[in-house]
């Protein structure tokens, strides 16, 4: 448990009278790549969004890097600096250039000087293959490019956890590969990742653990091998028969 990066205990989340997460417990250790799969409405995105408190939990406890983020006294902004998040719809800041998108937060939070942030951003852009787009506006980029910028923007903060909320769901098919490639590289480098995705191929290849959710519960979890090749729960089998 010493290297537990994320620890979720008895998490419940209601939207009004609708119970979206019912008693979720989960441990993620350093360097693990956990992939959440499940039908829409199963609560996987909500679970992800609870981890960095974009959604407030109804009850239960979430501890990230030793900080109880469900505790009101925790400085959630400080914790979030270490949790990168990539959204389905990219959420790039449309009024800012790519480089400004990336440097805004670290410079404003005084984590990096302007020059440091810029140098770092350029290196990251090179890494995601977009060095020539530093001065472009988001509206001038393709979906795949936007998402790669969004990943680079998150990495600029030097996070030790990355959350991905259906990062390829809004992309045209031919652009999915370029985004997954960046994610795979991140995984190889040992980043702790929690990924909500429908990309079963990605999960097979990269996940250290696959979690199948349905109806607000974790129904089944295990290695990709276990979950995809020998699912035990009927609901998992049913779901996989539809997506594989």
């Amino acid at each position: 448990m010493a290297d537990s990066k994320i620890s979720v205990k008895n998490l419940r989340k209601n939207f009004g009278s609708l119970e979206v997460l019912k008693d979720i417990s989960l441990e993620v250790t350093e360097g693990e790549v956990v992939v959440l799969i499940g039908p829409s409405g199963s609560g996987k995105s909500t679970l992800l969004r609870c981890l960095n408190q974009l959604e407030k939990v109804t009850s239960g406890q979430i501890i990230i890097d030793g900080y109880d983020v469900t505790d009101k006294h925790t400085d959630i902004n400080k914790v979030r600096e270490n949790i990168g998040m990539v959204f389905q719809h990219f959420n790039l800041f449309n009024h800012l250039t790519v480089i400004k998108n990336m440097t805004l937060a670290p410079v404003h939070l005084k984590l990096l000087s302007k020059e440091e942030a810029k140098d770092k951003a350029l290196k990251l852009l090179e890494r995601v293959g977009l060095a020539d787009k530093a001065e472009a506006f988001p509206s001038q980029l393709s979906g795949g490019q936007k998402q790669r910028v969004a990943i680079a923007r998150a990495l600029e903060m030097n996070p030790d956890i990355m959350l991905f909320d259906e990062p390829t769901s809004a992309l045209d098919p031919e652009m999915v590969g370029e985004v997954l490639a960046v994610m795979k590289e991140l995984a190889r480098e040992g980043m702790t990742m929690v990924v909500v995705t429908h990309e079963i191929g990605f999960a097979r290849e990269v996940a250290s653990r696959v979690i199948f959710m349905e109806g607000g519960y974790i129904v089944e979890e295990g290695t990709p091998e276990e979950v995809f090749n020998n699912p035990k729960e009927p609901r998992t089998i049913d779901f996989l028969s539809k997506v594989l």
Partner: protein
Amino acid sequence: MLMILQRYGLMLVAALGQTLLLTLLSLFFAMIIGMIFGLMNVGHNRVFNFIGTVYVDAVRGVPLIVLAYFIYFGVPAAIQGIGFDTFRLTALQAGTIALSMNCGAYMAEIIRAGIQSVDRGQMEAGRSLGLTYGSSMALIVVPQAIRTMIPSIINQYIITLKDTSILSVIGFSELTNVGKTIMGNTFMALQTWTIIGIMYMVVIVTLSKLSKKLERRINRGR
């Protein structure tokens, strides 16, 4: 017509100056009022939401002319009633307060709508990077909201400029009030109101042309 211009030209220019002074003062305070109540209404704090809604509903629910009477006559009467015998408001002070409150309520709605037109994901992305609500609002959401707000804000500016004429009822010597005086002295209604109308129109058309230019320049970045 020429006679009016010759005899009352200076008076008309001074009156236009008063109209513009009242407009600028009111717009300045309305912007502040609008930002405060507009931001109260977009947040998730119930108390702020309530205060913001009450303000906007109350002010929008009262005709400007009633508000002007209330502030010019009603408020000083109340303050005198509690012992400050000599308290009075000048027509400019009362007019500025009434018009700022009125325009501020509409401005609050424009600002609320503008901010809510920005995709929620923008705020979430800001928060996920560790920025506070305030910083995300100031650095990410508001700059994008302003683009969509500008046409409505300019429209409101023009309405406010025209609404200054209502304050002739509390004796503020702006353009319309001076028009009444001139008409009373000369009995040349058609000529007087033609001149007054043209003066308003020239200022307003000039302003809206300028603002169109500004709007275009701001949108060019996109």
